[in-house]
């Protein structure tokens, strides 16, 4: 995160990471579609074609706090194959959404990308334990998908929140964003005292992020109303 008191600006960086074709870009496209134009920038794809291909999507979402701060949430997708280069670009991610493919056949690939993520964070001087991660199990509608019980097992194996999703239909997308931003906020609050210094509480932060998003029919609406979040 970058906190600039002079410009009264807080920039939050969230990285969507996972195996190729697991639905990272789809997540961003859905967030883009559900956010009013005043609250987001364009969904941008940066792509270079040569021997060291770089490819990522970038979607900025922003809002203004009562205290006069502009909060920019930059959502990146980072394709696994260039993680080495790309994590350097996005190395100071405040949180990571790990988009996994729910199909049993994808288990091995999920694992290898997961390990890769941990390795690369370590290589870039990041303590994996300090960067919160949320796991999204995407493509819950496809055959061969893991059962809810199996998802429950994955959840039990770690501390990361696990969210089922069908990103292509928008299911679970905002829930994942909510979860990842909630953890990002907690980490930033711990580091920079957002509540104290910016007068920005967790509830307020999340409320403002989602104020310009269409949360109808999602759990986010209930979480915002009642406070709380995913497990």
């Amino acid at each position, binding site marked *: *995160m*970058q*906190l*600039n*008191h*002079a*410009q009264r*600006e807080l*920039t939050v960086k969230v990285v969507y990471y996972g195996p190729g074709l697991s639905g990272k870009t789809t997540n961003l496209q859905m967030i883009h579609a559900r956010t009013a134009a005043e609250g*987001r*920038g*364009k969904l*941008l*794809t*940066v*792509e*270079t074609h*040569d021997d*060291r291909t*770089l490819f990522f999507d*970038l979607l*900025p979402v*922003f*809002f*203004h706090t009562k205290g006069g701060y*502009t909060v*920019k949430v*930059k959502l990146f997708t980072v394709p696994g194959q260039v993680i080495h*280069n790309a994590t*350097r*670009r*996005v*190395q*100071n991610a*405040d949180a990571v959404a790990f988009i996994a493919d729910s199909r049993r056949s994808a288990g091995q690939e999920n694992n290898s990308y997961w390990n890769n993520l941990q390795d690369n964070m370590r290589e*870039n*001087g990041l303590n994996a334990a300090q960067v919160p991660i949320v796991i999204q199990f995407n493509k819950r509608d496809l055959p061969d998908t893991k059962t809810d019980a199996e998802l429950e097992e994955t959840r039990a194996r770690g501390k990361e929140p696990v969210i089922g999703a069908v990103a292509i239909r928008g299911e679970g997308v905002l829930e994942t964003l909510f979860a990842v931003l909630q953890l990002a906020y907690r980490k*930033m609050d711990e*580091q*920079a005292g957002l509540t104290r210094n910016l007068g920005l509480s967790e509830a307020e932060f999340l409320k403002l992020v989602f104020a310009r998003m269409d949360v109808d029919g999602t759990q986010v609406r209930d979480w915002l109303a009642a406070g709380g979040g995913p497990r």
Partner: protein
Amino acid sequence: MSDGGDNGRPEPRDSRGERPESVLQRRLTLADMLDVGTFNELVKGFADLYKLGIQVFDEKGNRLAYIKVGNGDFCGYVFSFPEGQRCCTQTVARVKGGPLATTQNARAPQSAAGTKLHGMITVPCFTGLRYLVLPILWEGDVLGRVVFGPFTPEEMGELPTSLTDLTPGIDLAMAQSYLSKIRRAPESTIVKVLLHFAQLLETLVAAGQKTYLTSQVHIEATLESNRDLEAQNRRLEQMNVQLKDMDRLKSSFLATVSHELRTPLTSIIGYSEMLAEGLVGSLNQEQTEYVRTIMDKGDTLLKLISSILDVTQIEAGKVRLTFEPVTVGDLIASAITSVRPQAQKKGLTIDMKLPGRKVEARADREKLRQVMVNLLSNAVKFTPKGGWVQVLVTEVKFQPEIDADGWRFVVQDSGVGIPADQLEKIFQSFYQVDNSSTREFGGAGLGLAIVKSYVEGHGGVVRVQSELGQGSRFEVILPVSPPPPRAVISPPLSEAPPSPPERF
């Protein structure tokens, strides 16, 4: 994370050193995203089409585009009066740098109901003309502003009396005629034109942002890889220096140790010889046998130490070759003589085939003899009982391998052979195909390293062919007259074995 404070730059969090701020962490300016030249052309076309002056400023007030249409004469005339100049300057400052809010004389524009104004404001000029100002918003930031005008509002009739009050002596008729050159239109129309312009600008900025980010990120990635490679190069260079140091140390250690070993060994052999020859009293048969064994083993040890010294001298670059005319056949015969006892012990036959015409060549006699002895003793050593060793010398003729006239010396055996993957390594010092502690064949692994160095010192090459279990064939190709000796014979050790070609 960084608590930016005054400049907002992130602190480097990488222990490998500071890395410049990424374009992704920086707030882009309008000038980053627009090609100012092309943009000016577009603005000019737009201004001409709508007969309207257009100015575009970035957030710091720098003007990126400025196209005047029609108002030059009028504004110039008003500006020529002192009070007119003062008021004009004020209006321009308000338009260019004033708040993008309906304060300080600005108001909301008149527009058709339901028009989304995106923060547009109207700033009236004291002459009765008007400006429209629109913030350029991008991802929640104000990147600059577009100023349209001045234009004459449709409803404006005569010039306001405030103008005559402020600028006494103004010729209203002349001012009025100048005014007619300025676009007259309803404010709501100009609002629409400005909104249209804003759409165009947004498209341009979006395309520009993408291009800019792509190219910048690409440059950053390339620089990053470059930094990585440089760091890696530095590490490799350091390692290389270390390795060379170690190699030098090793050679010097070997030279010292060998020398220190040889001196007492000579005494051991000398005294044993005296004992064996009965110079200090006669020995019985058993004692003589024991002393001869001491002498034999001492000789073996001395040979080994001499080889080590040879190699260390080669490695230290201290070997010089002195070429003289030699008769190859004689030299080979002498070399065979020195290995014949071992061959006889194992029941090996040694055949020699010499060409019809004697081969006379220039060579370093001692070194060449050693090449032959080394190859022959290898052949004898690695050939099991009852096998054969063949020595062949060819006539002098052109040898493509060395691109000169030369001759070949071939030692072939029916021995154990060499595995194909080891063929490249056998010429390295201390290399043994069987490196286990229980290996069957003795030796220090120096013979072939010396052969290679000496042959190359003669401007020749050495080749090997072998089939495991079938035997080996070493072929030395030497020029008739070798090139003048190089000061340094390159040591075989420092020559890294070529890595196998990459498959993909």
